[in-house]
């Protein structure tokens, strides 16, 4: 996956992509970080009762049904109940059945993970899932926003994303007609730009050398389809923005805040780069 070939392909494809809007667009050669993990790490992710991230999903499930804020509402009030996972499955499913008993249509969480970041008309900026959840908290629940990397936020994000497990990530942010196109361009620039004392771009590791061992780590393509991921090194889950900051620091470059415009743009670009890959949240990575 070299940048030049990619961009030319993008130009060639974009006309066709408009026609094929309903079909899933898959980035050429993209493979999940899962593929590069050892079979033990893969097994840890595959089994819902062994995957340590599921402990946080459990927090998300508790939060889902907890009334919070002055509106006296829980997520479930407007989005359907979280169905506790059966013992055999261990899956936490948010009831996707549309419940119109209260007069209101409940909005399902299925497929949500495949389409974020979206474009937020109010701020004219990308909106990532964490921000969408906090918007529901502050606006719809009149509750306090959660911190970006709090257990509640990561747990709820994972619970929501899990409802799209196995569904392909979609993005058309590369198209000039997309309101996210500006963010996509900025994100692509960030990804390909050399930075830091080591003068390295994300691309130098993740496009040029996936499958290569860099000390104890097997370099992957840095795909976004498993986030928030449980990282063995952290011994807890982390957001993709935490990973970005880590990779910036690794080459001794300036890092940005979680939720910063820089990282949101990067997420727009990298989600496009991951298009077609199946949502794996919560993944386990080294």
């Amino acid at each position, binding site marked *: 996956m070299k940048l030049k070939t990619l961009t030319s392909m993008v130009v060639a494809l974009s006309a066709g992509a408009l026609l094929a809007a309903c079909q899933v667009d898959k980035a050429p050669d993209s493979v999940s970080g899962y593929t590069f993990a050892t079979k033990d790490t893969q097994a840890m992710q595959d089994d819902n009762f062994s995957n340590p991230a599921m402990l946080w999903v459990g927090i998300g499930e508790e939060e889902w049904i907890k009334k919070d804020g002055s509106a006296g509402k829980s997520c479930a009030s407007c989005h359907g109940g979280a169905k506790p996972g059966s013992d055999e499955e261990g899956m936490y499913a948010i009831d996707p059945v549309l419940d119109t008993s209260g007069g209101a249509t409940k909005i399902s969480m299925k497929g949500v993970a495949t389409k974020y970041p979206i474009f937020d008309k109010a701020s004219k900026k990308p909106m990532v899932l964490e921000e969408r959840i906090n918007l529901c908290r502050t606006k719809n629940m009149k509750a306090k926003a959660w911190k970006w990397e709090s257990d509640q936020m990561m747990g709820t994000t994972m619970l929501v994303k899990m409802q799209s497990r196995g569904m392909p990530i979609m993005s058309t942010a590369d198209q000039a007609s997309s309101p996210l196109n500006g963010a996509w361009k900025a994100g692509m620039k960030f990804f390909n730009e050399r930075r830091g004392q080591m003068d390295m771009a994300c691309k130098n590791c993740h496009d040029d050398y*996936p499958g290569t061992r*860099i000390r*104890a780590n097997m370099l992957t393509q840095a795909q976004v389809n498993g986030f928030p991921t449980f990282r063995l090194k952290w011994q807890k889950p982390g957001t993709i923005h935490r990973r970005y900051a880590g990779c910036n620091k690794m080459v001794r470059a300036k890092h940005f805040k979680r939720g910063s415009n820089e990282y949101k743009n990067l997420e727009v670009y990298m989600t496009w780069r991951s298009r077609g890959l199946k949502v794996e949240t919560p993944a386990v990575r080294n």
Partner: protein
Amino acid sequence: MAKTIKKPLSVDRRSLLKATGVGVLAVAGSGLLSRTAQATPETAAKKLSELTGGAAVKQGKVNVKLPEIAENGRTVPMTVSVDSPMSSGNYVKTIHVVAEGNPNPDVVSFNLSPGTGKAEVATRIRLGKTQNVVARAVMSDGSVYEGKRQVKVTIGGCGG
């Protein structure tokens, strides 16, 4: 899986190597298991004989399953199984697990009973470096069996 590098290592090689250096620093600074004291095969064996009351040890019956190469020493999946009918008259009472190269040899001890039905336990352990993990099973008749396994540990230190 592991793709071969299409592009020859050129300009990026130096920076890649430098980045590798950062990886080393990150490991040193993270202090997963401090390197002050260190178990040895001898201290580990001593610990085991303390735990099993100095009983004579036979090899066999105990199988320690660990990855050949652990992706990250912080979470290494381990399964210990013992060849036993697990009947009321013949069962595994205890399985002691020690690590020969950790700061402290103790890892975990499992207490089983005929109600356990099958002498197989899986957990996840921390290993500071490449080393042997040794398990000793105490049977209901007082006999003691031992099994061990070597595991190579490559601690992840990148992407912080």
